[in-house]
């Protein structure tokens, strides 16, 4: 008996779309809403990630084991720290402006977005300069540990977000040079630029707010 399962050799459990069947393209708002939801969820995950550091800060500060929480000379550089958080906030504002312009139909939105990327990278650079200037290192007690780890991980998050924002600018600029690219699977791919920018701007504004909290806790308290 020829087994009817012969039509099912291993590795072909998922057949291709039969010839002649036309797959209607996906409505673009599916991808748009997925991006919007994902950026909110990512913000939630990021919050919980940094919550661990906030918890560590207040926990170690309140128990102050053997008075090793923070020695007198351990002070981060206020000028550089202020400059860095300034860059972050300005960058986020520029991103929001860019998002507004995009929604208003203006074609000039890539300019503020690019400015936001530059400022975000400047913030990263300033923080790195601060590491070389400061008079303490990660081994100088609990505050120093929290400071170094928290700021470094925040920088990584900023770098990732700047990459994300950069891809929006790059996609738009390329789409202007080579109009209406289609990728086949999500219909007109350039329709996704607007929701993607929206999601990025939301996330960056959120991350900047976390940055402000970081600054207040580490520099001002």
């Amino acid at each position, binding site marked *: 008996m020829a087994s009817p399962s012969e039509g099912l050799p291993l590795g072909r459990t998922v*057949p291709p779309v039969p010839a002649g069947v036309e797959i209607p393209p996906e409505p673009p708002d599916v991808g748009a809403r997925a991006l919007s939801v994902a950026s909110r969820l990512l913000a939630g995950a990021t919050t919980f990630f940094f919550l*661990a550091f906030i918890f560590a800060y207040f926990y170690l500060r309140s128990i102050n084991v053997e008075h090793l929480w923070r020695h007198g000379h351990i002070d981060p550089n206020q000028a550089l720290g202020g400059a860095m958080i300034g860059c972050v906030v300005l960058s986020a504002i520029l991103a929001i402006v860019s998002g507004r312009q995009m929604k208003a139909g203006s074609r000039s939105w890539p300019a503020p977005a690019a400015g936001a990327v530059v400022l975000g990278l400047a913030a990263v650079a300033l923080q790195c300069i601060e590491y070389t200037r400061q008079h303490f290192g990660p081994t100088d007690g609990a505050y120093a540990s929290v400071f170094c780890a928290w700021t470094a991980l925040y920088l990584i998050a900023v770098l990732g977000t700047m990459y994300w924002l950069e891809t929006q*600018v790059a996609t738009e600029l390329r789409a202007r040079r080579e109009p209406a690219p289609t990728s086949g699977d999500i219909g007109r791919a350039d329709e996704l630029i607007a929701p993607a920018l929206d999601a990025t701007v939301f996330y960056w504004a959120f991350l900047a707010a976390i940055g402000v909290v970081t600054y207040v806790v580490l520099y001002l308290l």
Partner: protein
Amino acid sequence: MTTTAAVPTPQPTGRPLWRRLIGFNLLTAVALGVGGYYLGWFIGHQISAKSLAYQEKTSENDVALLVAYLFGVVGFLIGLGFANYPVSRLLGRPASLREKEEEGIGRYFGLCTDHKVVGMQYLIGIGLFFFIGGVNAMLIRTELLHSTPTFVGPGQYISLVGMHGTMMMGMMTSGILGPFANYFVPIMLGARRMAFPRIEALTFWLLMAAGFILTSTIFFGGFPTGWTGYEPLNDQAVMGMDSYIIFFALVGISMCLLGLNMMATIITMRAPGLTWSRLPIFVWSVLATAVLMVLAAPVLVATLTMAALDRTIDTSFFIPGGGGSSYLFENLFWFFGHPEVYILALPGFGIVLELLPVFTRKPLWGYRLAVSGMLGVTLLSFFVWQHHLFVSGINADLRPFYMLSTEIISIPTGFIFLCAMGTLWKARSSFSVPMLFCLAWVFNFLIGGLSGVFVSDTPSDTSTHGSFFTMAHFHYTIMGGLIFTFFAAIYYWVPKMTGLRFNERLAKLHFWLMFIAFNSTFLPLFAIGMMGQPRRVSQYAPNLHALNTWVSISAFVLGLSMLIFIANTVYSMIFVRLPVAMNPWRSKSIEWQIPTPVPVYNFEQVPVFDSDPYDYGTPIHVGGTRPEPAGA
């Protein structure tokens, strides 16, 4: 009857073999992974700073190993082709969703964005590491045949326990979401894909890299902390601890992304008519699990980062000598760790409630109650973590709160039980293999839940904590709760995924042997624990020898039952290959209404849902197009 669609034979690719092996595939990934590992090892040894002087004086170099692992993972992912898309986006190329969805067996060995392929990959990959974890359990029980260390030394014993526990906790978090949610959630939603197919593939390959790294701990001396990685032991441990850290951090990232993808998919991609109150209960359980994954896993990653920094650049998060506190680790770990245990339990609830209606031919009793139970568990599980620290010396005033909050969780959990009971009530059930596993869940989880009351109660926890009583408790909930439903899902859905059916007799043999051996293994452990046998120690009082021998023999039979399962899989899926009927369980759920094997795009036309999924009596409507998706 067979419904296998005529599958066109794939076009043989004309290229020679060597040419096909070059490119972004598993082979390249392994090569770049190994290369990255050694590069990282080399670079790690070049890095030195004041605080690293200690490292230089010993043969231990945690910096080198951590950098090596990280570079190895990055190389592995690049080799699979995960860097291509981000780079092309950096250059402004348009977004796309699908990659490498061509024909042939090759897709199963690399990056593929078809959610059905990823589901299969997960099933095999997780199965492999589940097997390794199981072999470790057998070795543990072999050692415990004697009351004094004989087979492995005390240090190796704790490593073995740690590897077993960590592998199981890390891998099985995705045990049901990985294979079955990835495969069936989009179908159940009437969608063609997951919201982020590339991230979906990434979660799988991260997990594989992680499993490999945890296994490699044997080359670096293992780790002495068990799966919980407690400080200060964590900081003092040899390099094998770094494997634990990287493993769990990768699992955390994978888990967080998996949850994020699931939530985005469920929220945004439901087909027209699929309102929240028509969502299959399995999808609800996936949603609840995903919430926990997205919020709890980042805390784990942050905590392990701190631990890694303590071990390398000598920060002092957890080191009292530098102003830190090991309690900080314990708190942060369990802030993740308790939600983690519900990440393991919730998908099991979903499977049981999804399958019971099919086999009882009755609608799910108390759908809304079940949903509120799952959401209640999700919410409460963030407020109980200190029940793991009752006897650690925490402030005694905190204990009543955590005792109460823990015991309150039994209310929403009770809802799930109630719904299962209500569905079973007066039903004329058919006792097919998936149903048997679901019924076993009812039995096992009841014992697990009832014993949980004793460990959550502070006075009784003072004597059960750290004993085999606790060990028995969580095996009843995890193995009895998750693994039994995992097998229920396998017997229920794998026929859909492969188009082939399992040998029924072997399956029944597997079930009965597993069920009896499982209870015979873990029930006596409650008694052994009450009589004072501690966890994680291979030496025990000689008067417990007889019971331990009984338990070990039962455990070996339990292992044997797994071998029967593997034999059945090989026999049924590779040799006999009997095709499965269109809808063997006569389910009303949509995945059984579409052809087997499922076409690449799942549905030629977007389905419209017009009834709830457990409405046994009226046919499900699959067909008519309506392009606009369901409102939120």
